[in-house]
């Protein structure tokens, strides 16, 4: 039997509190900076929405672009990553293991290097180079391993192997059992993978900064631009916009994932 009530531990609480403050304080300061008239005088200078308006006017389009690229990355990693994860989970060949290693390279290699490689390959295709599609390709290269790894781990579980065998004994063809049994059974892992891909894509800067053009900017790229070329209050207001866009989406996705876990969990 485990004790139901935990004994008070003041030291533990103090440490937790300190860590929380350490993590949250910079965000709060930044949000505050985006809402004051003048950061150097602080709150005394009064609150304003002027900077937010300015950000929306100058960089509003990056919000839509980032959300679309995030959604596009999720869609592309689903279509490419889920079948790939299945193949890797079922294959015992050395080539499959090697491929798995290669697949995770873009995570370890600096984004700039990946971006340079993409420019070398696709740089000559001007219309593609200048479109958001180019950035999407970069994001897919970067986020695919996260989807594949998460879903592949789910496919590898013994229950999944047994589920597939059960479907086979019942006469299901590969298509029938893949879409009808396996994908639904790993659905919680797929949702977790989507969440990760979306989050990574929205916040991705390194690679995107190398790939973007003045007409194809995402949220983080715009943020860098505003920090570099405008008042600190504008940059901070931009952070606020970023949080306002991202947090609701992440919360919604997380709630969905939790609901799925609850429904399918045994």
């Amino acid at each position: 039997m485990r004790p139901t009530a935990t004994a008070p531990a003041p030291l533990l609480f103090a440490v937790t509190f300190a860590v929380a403050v350490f993590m949250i304080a910079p965000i709060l300061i930044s949000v505050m900076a985006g809402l004051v008239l003048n950061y150097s005088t602080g709150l005394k200078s009064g609150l304003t929405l002027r900077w937010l308006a300015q950000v929306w006017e100058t960089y509003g389009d990056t919000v839509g672009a980032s959300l679309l690229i995030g959604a596009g990355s999720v869609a592309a990693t689903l279509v490419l990553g889920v079948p790939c994860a299945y193949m890797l989970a079922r294959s015992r060949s050395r080539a499959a293991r090697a491929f798995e290693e290669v697949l995770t390279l873009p995570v370890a290699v600096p984004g700039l290097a990946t971006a340079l490689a993409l420019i070398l390959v696709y740089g000559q295709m001007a219309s593609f180079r200048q479109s958001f599609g180019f950035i999407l390709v970069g994001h897919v290269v970067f986020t695919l391993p996260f989807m594949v790894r998460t879903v592949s781990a789910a496919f590898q579980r013994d229950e999944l192997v047994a589920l597939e065998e059960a479907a086979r004994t019942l006469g299901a063809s590969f298509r029938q059992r893949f879409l009808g049994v396996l994908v639904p059974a790993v659905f919680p892992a797929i949702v977790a993978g989507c969440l990760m891909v979306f989050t990574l894509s929205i916040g991705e800067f390194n690679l995107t900064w190398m790939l973007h053009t003045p007409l194809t900017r995402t949220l983080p790229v715009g943020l860098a631009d505003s920090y570099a070329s405008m008042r600190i209050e504008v940059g901070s207001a931009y952070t606020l916009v970023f949080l306002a866009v991202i947090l609701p989406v992440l919360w919604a996705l997380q709630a969905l994932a939790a609901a799925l876990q609850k429904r399918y969990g045994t």
Partner: protein
Amino acid sequence: MQLERTRIEIVDCAKTYADGTRGLKPTTLTVEPGEVIALLGPSGCGKTTLLRLLAGLEAADPGGRIRFGDQDVTARPVEKRGVGMVFQSYALFPQMTVAANIGYGLLVRGVDEAERRRAVGELVDLVRLNGLEAKRPAELSGGQRQRVALARAVAVRPRVLLLDEPLAALDAKLKESLRDELAELLRRLGITAVHVTHDQHEAFAIADRLAVMHAGSIVQVGDAETLYRAPAHAFVAEFLGRVNRLDRDADALARGVVKLGGVEWPCAPRSAEARVLVRPEDLQLGARQPGWAAATVRHRTFLGERIQLRIEAAGQPPLLADVARDSPFQVGDEVGLLIAPDRLMASMETPE
């Protein structure tokens, strides 16, 4: 619901895995139409491998043949083999309801919805899952899951039913009541079934015949009573129940007797071995009297329905004796011991 009765013939089937391990040595076995056979043995004996060969989930080494009735199914993929299989973990589809699980095999065969609903309804009645059709597997008890797995496997009217440790995931009490239920259900369906288990009581309760397996081959095939009373090997005797070993020296061998506690009993002529076996329940205890071996009770364990005693008699290692619950013997008692000579079993040494 009555299902087709199909004969299964396994001829020279062996299985060597990619890493060179021999999962199954060349094995030949025939299962009669409508018969329930148990593949019984410890883990790693090859029973699951043989079951998976039958299912088509593994391919037998070249040269092996598997026939269902008149049809050679050796090269048939699992999807087209017409088997129903109940997995140890049940492998129920977690996102589907009970009814959808049971109807899945019919769904992938393109059976129309009305017919599917009728068949699922019939099966739900058969395995008594009424009222649970809309539940998901996670909401069911272990026994209910097991019944869903069985209903799903027979829904497609398979020629052969394969059961891989169907009761292993259940707790001991439930197991006992469900094994009788399963046995009865299999008889009612009349299907040829192969049942893999490591639990001899489960095999006794469910199967018509048992094939005891050891180290990748079948050691002995027969009905439960034959195997229990006349095991062909010490391994079979020990696997099906507890046994005592009685040693025989050269003199005892020469004169065809067993020596125990100062007396000699004749030993069955078939046994010219240095060791014979006897089951604990075949040891008869009483007061010291002429013709009975002299023994001493060293340990006493009350087991509820019976008492297990460890006794010592001169010339033999300690012996286990099962006696009735009301037997008066206590630790330290000097007792007489009698073994009917026809209860002595040969002990061919464990097969290689």
